[in-house]
């Protein structure tokens, strides 16, 4: 029952978030700030995760295709598909759930418990829209760039690791990543990350906005934000894959 209660409350909140803003330039400025805070500031962690992910996938693929009958360009192809289809969207989203999710929930939660949200409401500001909309829009706009970054860095990481470990030559790796390339994989990943980031930002905002109590509850809200975002990412990963790839 409590699940339905929360889902209902979540949609009511979204309804307030997506009402028409009255001061466009204020929202515009806030959105730019959020692009910086949630997007640009996540590039570092996404790049680091991706380079190691690409490296490990390449070496694992090499290990799994050790059979001499299989050409080594399959390593590049396998790594490419794994990165494009799954890692640059789903894994990156899970990382972002940790970073952006906890950030948003604790920021909004702190504003709630220190009565800053009440202060906004009393002035007549739609606090839900003012606080949440720029975060959702800023993050959703920037997320595809993070995925593209992850793809490039991940595939490069695979190349470095693969050649350094001596499991594949540069020519074969490059031939592999070009072989039977399907650009739709990229579209599929970009659609997924957009949905995932929308889920992360709205679920985390929901938990932050509905915090009550003190700093302990802010911590709890932040944990719930990460856990629930991750669960919904995995659930929607399944749904979207079924819808988009089958």
């Amino acid at each position: 029952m409590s699940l339905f209660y929360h889902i209902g409350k979540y949609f009511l909140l979204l309804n307030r978030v997506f009402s028409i803003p009255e001061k466009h330039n204020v929202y515009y400025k806030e959105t730019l700030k959020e692009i910086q805070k949630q997007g640009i500031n996540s590039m570092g962690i996404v790049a680091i995760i991706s380079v190691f992910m690409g490296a490990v996938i390449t070496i694992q693929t090499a290990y799994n295709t050790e059979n001499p009958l299989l050409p080594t360009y399959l390593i590049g192809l396998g790594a490419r598909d794994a990165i494009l289809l799954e890692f640059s969207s789903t894994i990156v989203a899970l990382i972002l759930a940790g970073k952006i999710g906890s950030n948003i929930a604790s920021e909004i939660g702190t504003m709630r418990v220190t009565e800053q949200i009440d202060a906004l409401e009393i002035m007549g500001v739609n606090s839900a829209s003012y606080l949440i909309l720029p975060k959702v829009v800023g993050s959703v706009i920037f997320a595809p760039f993070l995925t593209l970054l992850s793809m490039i860095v991940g595939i490069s990481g695979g190349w470095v690791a693969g050649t350094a470990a001596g499991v594949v030559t540069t020519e074969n790796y490059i031939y592999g990543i070009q072989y039977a390339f399907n650009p739709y994989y990229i579209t599929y990943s970009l659609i997924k990350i957009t949905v995932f980031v929308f889920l992360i930002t709205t679920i985390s905002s929901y938990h932050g906005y509905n915090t009550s109590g003190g700093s302990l509850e802010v911590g709890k809200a932040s944990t719930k934000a990460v856990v629930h975002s991750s669960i919904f990412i995995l659930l929607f990963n399944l749904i979207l894959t079924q819808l988009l790839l089958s």
Partner: protein
Amino acid sequence: MIEVKDISKSFENTKVLNEVNVLFEKGKTNLIIGQSGSGKTVLLKSIVGLHQVDKGQIIFDNIVFNELNFKDKKEMRKQIGMLFQGGALFDSSSVEENVRYPLDMFTNLSLSDKQDRVNECLKRVNLINANKFYPAEISGGMQKRVAIARAIALNPKYLFCDEPNSGLDPQTAILIDNLIKEITEEYNMTTIVNTHDMNSVMEIGDKVVFIYKGEKWWEGTKEGIFDTENNELNNFIFASTLSRKIKDLKKGG
């Protein structure tokens, strides 16, 4: 003038306010006093509409505020300034950005006009040269001043203060209290202040309402408060050893 008629408020199963009736007067500082947990904050937040009351009416100068539709309520809110128990300044904005915030959101003034208004408000609360500081970088007393400046930025008709001097030393507390009283008289606002500080009552209490366990137990003026026969109020007033000593001295003399 704000009239509170028969309001009750419960959270889940606990009744916090029970049929409260009060008239808060214009141009005066109206105080709500009572013990911690008696329901002062809930009463104040119910009056301004941050809590939805279960029953009763809240009337702001002939307008039944709690029965307005969403849009009219929003319009009314622009005439309300509020000071929260913890200050509630926006931590990620500087002092001047905090005070400018309502102007940014609700006026179409040019930046220099807004800046002038910000400086005027900050000067009114005796806070100069603090414009660029962040809330975490200034003292509690200064934070309260910034919060007052922000609350009066749009020239409100109604001012609400939830324990404006909690956490301050007695001298600063009196300064803040007097500031609120002066501003109230200057702009002819209807001001309601929550407090549990008897010093505030003596300094600024034009009208005093005593809340006990969510009910209005007593109302009157600061002059009348010491003559009351009301037991709970007497316990509240003479809670400290110091005040009991003074009372005994008075009786003896």
